[in-house]
């Protein structure tokens, strides 16, 4: 193999490595961006679902009953 062929082969190899590296970086960056977008989209969706589920559940009083003394003004019992 002549010296020219060796240099040419090495140059082609280096060019190939650069191309693969560039592609890998681009794919990686695209993956990170897509993941972030998906995370934002589904994260927001999950928040919405949780809020809806909370809203659709049995309504909890903002404060529990307080202690009372003596007779009641009204009675809560079964009918």
């Amino acid at each position, binding site marked *: 193999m002549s010296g020219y062929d060796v240099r040419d082969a090495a140059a082609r190899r280096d060019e190939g490595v650069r191309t693969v590296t560039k592609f890998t970086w681009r794919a990686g960056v695209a993956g990170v961006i897509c993941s972030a977008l998906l995370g934002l989209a589904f994260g927001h969706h999950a928040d919405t679902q949780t809020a809806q589920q909370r809203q*659709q*559940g*049995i*309504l*909890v*009083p*903002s*404060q*529990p*009953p*307080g*202690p*009372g*003394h*003596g*007779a*009641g*003004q*009204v*009675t*809560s*019992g*079964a*009918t």
Partner: protein
Amino acid sequence: MTTTTVARDTFRVFGTTAVLLVTEAGALSQARALADAELAAVDQACSRFRPDSELTALNAARGATVTVSELFADLLAAALRAARLTDGDVDPTCGQALAGLGYDRDFDQVRAGGPASLATVPGPVPGWRRVELDDEYRQVRLPAGTGLDLGATAKAWASDHCAGLIAGHLGCGVLVSLGGDLAVAGPGPAEGWRVRVTDDHAAGPEAPGQTVTITEGGLATSSTTVRTWTAGGRQVHHIIDPATGGPARVCWRTVSVAAGSCVDANTASTAAIIRGEAAVSWLDEAGLPARLVRPDGTVVTTAGWPADNTPAVSP
């Protein structure tokens, strides 16, 4: 502390006792008129014992689609929501099961009629998922042979709506109790509304139990000891376990729950009776303050229900 003067009216409705409290004496007669109109409309819509009610017509439709009033659609939606929130423990398709146990007419007549024979062998109820409700067109279809009973939610729903209506129209504080399912609205007494929680809503204000105060939402009590009768040679009660179609096994004598509305409080108290021991963790996890009384009088509380300083109630 100053104590707010409260005006009171007591009357009969839905076969039970209603109590109306308002913080302005001058508003009482108008409040009563508003409540009467609302309650008459609810009775016309969903009484299981009136031959002219919408519910009776729907139960007799044999699978046909029926157009209902907006009020009935709201009442049915509330019942289906209760079923969904309790995974079907509070199921409105228990009408046939109740009728099979002899509860097929006004309860005073059931009691007066003496022991009933079992008309059918209990089995699982048809299930709330089989009820088709089209909200937009107000159309409902039940599978043939399915009987609806909205008793677990309609009375509580009516309490909520009467209270909201009266507070909205008259601007006063109001408490509406329909057979012990109570809702409050408007600016109530500074010290809160005093409620005696006990087994029987008809008991006096000093009956064995506990006095608590509430300032918002609703409070409801379900019990296996009050609405009872004899059928098939044994004592039965009116809270149906949808899984069996028979009365729920008695783990709790009485369950009282406070919630953001009366209908939600009653949904939870009824479900708790059916869930038995598992109700304690369910109520706690849901953040619902509740007081559960075992048949021997032992009291269990959840989610911030105030301490009961009264002695345990004798069974």
